């Protein structure tokens, strides 16, 4: 149990503040930083120095000190497994190349660095930039790797179930911006091919609404139809742009269709399910026969 007393560092007891600048003092990192970080994430590691090790990049690790390299190696694989399973289950219509893009784009090092910043891990990191003149270069990658190392540490210290729970609550709960990640450059061609593959009627674009056609700022709202069913809708200042957006919308709606998970049924739910019946008393025996 991390007591707050351990977190209370009476810093001025022995030393006199001398040449050390105020800024350096404020950013000083000690054992209390890692204890507070653990507590903020609701983790209780069995190994006391584990959180410090998670935040130590190999560029800062001395010869004797352990770095987060091995934890990061394991953690990256644990994290990518959870993310991959979740994406495969959530997006049934995506191709595997798209799934790979979504995983790389939305759950890659930059996104993990954002997660790490949200945790408050950035000031707790111990690392050194390879470029001496610019100490900030590489910060994002190092922070992203530290988050992977954190997942690895949870996996090793508290087990796979705890790691899965951590990833699900902190990382998989964030919304995925599928439109930016999928990067559809040729929506018309892709949509025509897709509809041909699915045996649907060929796409037809129709103007739904328009305003200001001969002015300097027209707005067209165009829908792309397959027969009588509208599959996508887009706006634009020209008909061509509106059609482009409508085709893109149709593709996003198809490929990024999400399956929203119901919460997994627990054993208690299963027992309750077996007992509960909506039939009235007279029909119940016949129903259970």
């Amino acid at each position, binding site marked *: 149990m*991390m*007591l*707050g*007393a351990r*977190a*209370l*560092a*009476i*810093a*001025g007891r022995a030393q006199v*503040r001398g040449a050390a600048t105020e800024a350096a*003092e*404020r950013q000083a990192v000690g054992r*209390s*930083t890692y*204890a*507070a*970080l653990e*507590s*903020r*994430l*609701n983790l209780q590691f069995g190994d006391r120095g584990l959180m410090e090790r998670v935040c130590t990049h190999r560029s800062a690790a001395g010869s004797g000190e352990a770095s987060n390299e091995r934890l990061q190696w394991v953690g990256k694989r644990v994290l990518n497994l959870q993310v991959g399973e979740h994406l495969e289950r959530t997006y049934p219509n995506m191709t595997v190349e798209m799934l790979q*893009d979504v995983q*790389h*784009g*939305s759950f*890659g*090092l*930059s*996104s993990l*660095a*954002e*997660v790490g*910043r*949200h*945790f*408050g891990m*950035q*000031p707790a990191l111990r690392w050194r930039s390879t470029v001496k003149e610019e100490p900030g270069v590489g910060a994002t990658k190092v922070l992203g790797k530290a988050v992977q190392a954190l997942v690895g540490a949870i996996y090793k210290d508290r087990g796979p179930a705890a790691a899965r729970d951590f990833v*699900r*609550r*902190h990382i*998989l*709960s*964030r*919304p*995925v*911006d599928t439109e*930016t*990640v999928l*990067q559809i450059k040729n929506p018309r061609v892709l949509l025509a091919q897709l509809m041909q593959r699915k045996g649907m009627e060929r796409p037809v674009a129709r103007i739904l609404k328009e305003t200001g056609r001969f002015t300097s700022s027209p707005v067209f709202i165009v829908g792309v139809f397959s027969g009588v069913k509208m599959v996508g809708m887009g706006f634009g200042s020209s008909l061509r742009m509106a059609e482009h957006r409508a085709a893109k919308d149709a593709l996003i709606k198809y490929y990024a269709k999400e399956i929203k998970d119901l919460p997994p049924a627990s054993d208690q739910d299963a027992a309750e399910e077996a007992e509960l019946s909506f039939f009235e008393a007279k029909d119940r025996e016949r129903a259970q026969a």
Partner: protein
Amino acid sequence: MVSFRLPNVLNAVIKAHLDEFVRPAKPKNGVGAFVFPCRKLVFNYCERSGSSRAMLEYLQTRAVQFARDNPQIEVIVQPRPSRHPIVRAFYTNGQQRTKCVRRCTVDEIPEVVKSLRDHSGHRLRRWNKYVLSDTPSVRGIYSPFHTSEVHVISDQKPRN
């Protein structure tokens, strides 16, 4: 005659660095898990000056209990000679807030500390919109008072 197509270098480069082009999703604290925003509280005091007397008493009597009750916050106590006593809070979004407690009594300091602890860290700003949405629409949010349909649950057959 061997013919080859040049690889599309730009697309390959973009795909390889996709995680830098895609803007990562904005953190929604509380969705999935809650991360306490206040990460560090620094108490600065002066041993000798009179304005720090209330702060010194707070540190001697109540600060340890506060630190025990809030294990997620790193509590630092530093002497800062010949200066007024301050409490400085650091938040996970990189912001800081400082409050000088020179004029506070011993009973007022815990309130100051509590307000700094409970702050989200975001700068004070004026919210001009009364609805913030991930899926904004020109038509606005749903209002049950502005629909023409009336939904009635009854055992009568619906009249078409």
